[in-house]
């Protein structure tokens, strides 16, 4: 009996505690699942760490833990999400992402076939993004102490000379741009949640945005802020920027791109799409002079087709994000206290 039979196949195709034990079973898992899909020269060297040449310029590092439920959802899965999420955080610093690391925490009993599907999806996402996963880690926890699989990824990227992007750089009178429709990811996830399943064609927008960012930086040197509105949605992200930059904002509700079906799902669930998560959208803040040129470049990119100008930065000591509603009044777009809870009646 060879090792494969005693490990990956001999145990009903599920991860067990031996896969995290540091012995042969773990080595087999790494070789047969992780290395097979993620293979590259640095990873294949099989060392404790990744040995890489230091590129010119300033380095950007970002890390992100992924705990999405369900693990597979319309338009993606935790694997590609773990790649896109971290790549986007690196890209939002104006950087070109180069490398990723991946740490897996797997719950005992998790189906190997599902793990393989997730790793293959990560490999595909990384390949498409032109980024290598160069080192990683696997731990197995007892049943009940995890939720299938958690993946933490860390990204490393490099920022070119002259690019100065940061959440603290928004200034009054600058223009706020958004790369596309909001809420797609959050609603796609909700549509598959237990007890809430509903029929929809909405799919997650999960995507790597650094290609779009590279195009934008090339034409708009005044680009001051880039940020992807993930958890907490557009509202949370704009509030973060307002506080970091000590400014206010004024949005036009009617200018914010929103799919009709996402809007309908939000109505049904009592949610405000401004607070629903995105995984493939970005907010850009730039000078008025650059806005049209930047919008044109965004709209020419497949991930920015629906890009729009959604508001302006204002001077406001209270750092409030206000919005002129489609109805003609004004409201505040506040931070959210915890999760968005559905209303009762």
């Amino acid at each position, binding site marked *: 009996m060879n090792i494969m039979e005693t490990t990956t196949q001999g145990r009903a195709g599920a991860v067990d505690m031996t896969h995290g034990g540091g012995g042969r079973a773990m080595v087999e898992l790494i070789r047969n699942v992780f290395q097979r899909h993620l293979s590259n020269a640095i990873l294949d060297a099989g060392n404790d760490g990744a040995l890489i040449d230091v590129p010119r310029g300033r380095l950007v590092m970002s890390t992100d833990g992924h705990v999405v439920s369900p693990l597979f959802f319309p338009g993606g899965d935790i694997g590609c999400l773990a790649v896109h999420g971290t790549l986007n955080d690196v890209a939002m610093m104006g950087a070109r992402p180069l490398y990723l690391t991946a740490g897996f925490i797997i719950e005992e009993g998790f189906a190997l076939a599902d793990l393989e599907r997730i790793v293959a999806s990560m490999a595909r996402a990384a390949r498409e993004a032109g980024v290598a996963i160069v080192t990683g880690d696997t731990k197995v926890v007892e049943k009940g102490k995890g939720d299938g699989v958690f993946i933490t990824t860390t990204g490393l990227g490099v920022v070119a000379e002259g690019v100065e992007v940061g959440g603290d750089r928004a200034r009054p009178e600058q223009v706020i741009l958004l790369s596309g429709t909001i809420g797609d990811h959050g609603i796609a996830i909700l549509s598959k949640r237990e007890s809430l399943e509903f029929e929809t064609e909405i799919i997650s927008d999960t995507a790597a945005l650094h290609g779009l960012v590279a195009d934008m930086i090339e034409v708009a040197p005044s680009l001051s802020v880039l940020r992807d509105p993930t958890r907490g949605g557009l509202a949370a992200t704009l509030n973060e920027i307002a506080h970091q930059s000590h400014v206010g904002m004024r949005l036009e509700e009617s200018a914010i791109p929103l799919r009709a079906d996402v809007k309908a799902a939000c109505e049904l669930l009592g949610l405000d799409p401004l607070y629903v998560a995105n995984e493939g959208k970005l907010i850009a803040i730039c000078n008025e002079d650059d806005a049209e040129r930047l919008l044109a470049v965004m709209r020419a990119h497949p991930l920015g087709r629906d890009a729009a100008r959604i508001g302006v930065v204002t001077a406001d000591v*209270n750092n409030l994000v206000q919005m*002129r509603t*489609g*109805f*003609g009044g004004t409201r505040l777009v506040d931070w959210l206290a915890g999760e968005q*809870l*559905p*209303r*009762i009646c």
Partner: protein
Amino acid sequence: MKYVDEYRRSDLSGKLAAAIAREAHPDRTYHVMEFCGGHTHAIFRYGVQDLMPGNVRFVHGPGCPVCVLPVRRLDDAVELAEGHGVILCSYGDMMRVPGTKQRSLIRAKADGADIRMVYSTQDALRIARENPSREVVFFAIGFETTTPPTAVAIRQAAAEGLSNFSVFCNHVLTPAAIQHILQSPEVRNLGTVLIDGFLGPSHVSSVIGSEPYQFFAEEFQKPVVIAGFEPLDVLQSTLMLIRQVNEGRHEVENEYTRVVTREGNVKAQSLVADVFELRASFEWRGLGTVPYSALKIRDGYAEFDAERRFAISEKASREVKSCECPAILRGVKKPTDCKLFGTVCTPDNPMGSCMVSSEGACAAYWTYGRFRSVGGEVRTVMPEVAG
């Protein structure tokens, strides 16, 4: 989006705002109490106040199902989950409401109580079916809108013989609450709360119909306009109400005709009547003890009544001192009159129920409208009105 966008059109909002400005006499003030938290939410979320002339004022009523539940009942729910080891199923809005010593369901859950957020009574039934060895209690709250689904769940549980399911019933009645407000000294004698008329509930009225409001419109000579929850509904209804006031009428009018009839949903009413009966009295946060203002489970369904199934202890429940939720719920005070508002009490750290629910007046003020009180950038006042 069909049936939604039509009721949020900015071209029509301008026209209605202009009509209200023409109708409202400049030499007097109009105090419109919107009973429901749903209306409060719509007024703030869409900035409806910005479209009103300065002499038309909204007074926020007690129709927020989460807000009116007294602390003791919430403490009882926490006790059910912690002390009796049940799976407690609750609507999401209820999870963060602070009980005595700021103890909320979400904190009890963090400490290990089995509390599940559900979207409907059907979820609670499913949980009961899936956990036959556990007691599952549905924490039923709300006005007439949420009562029929609870009635259906109890009947289903009875039909299935689902013996581990029960309901902690806190359903309350709208007409009793409105009548109580109108009879309060603040409205009748002291004049501290001015109410010229009511925007009547929309979803509640879809169940009970427009007829139940007839009595107090006549008795107290206050006009009622049953209003939908969309912002154009609110504007249209306010216009209708101002016209009634100007013409000295006090009728029950129905703006929400696309849903509400005079009789209401007779089938839902009969389901409710089959399962529930009136409680002699019930304590409301803000309003105190109100006679015949709530429902309890009938003897025929006694086995599904959590209050009879579990020995819930007497307790000394206490609200946070100086929290003005009670006065705010009666329309006596505005959220900004409360010392705690925006200082120690925010949605991140709510001291009272009105700051938790999005239908609560404090949460609406804070979340959508606080730029009006803190200054900041100059706000848009009246939009330009064409025609």
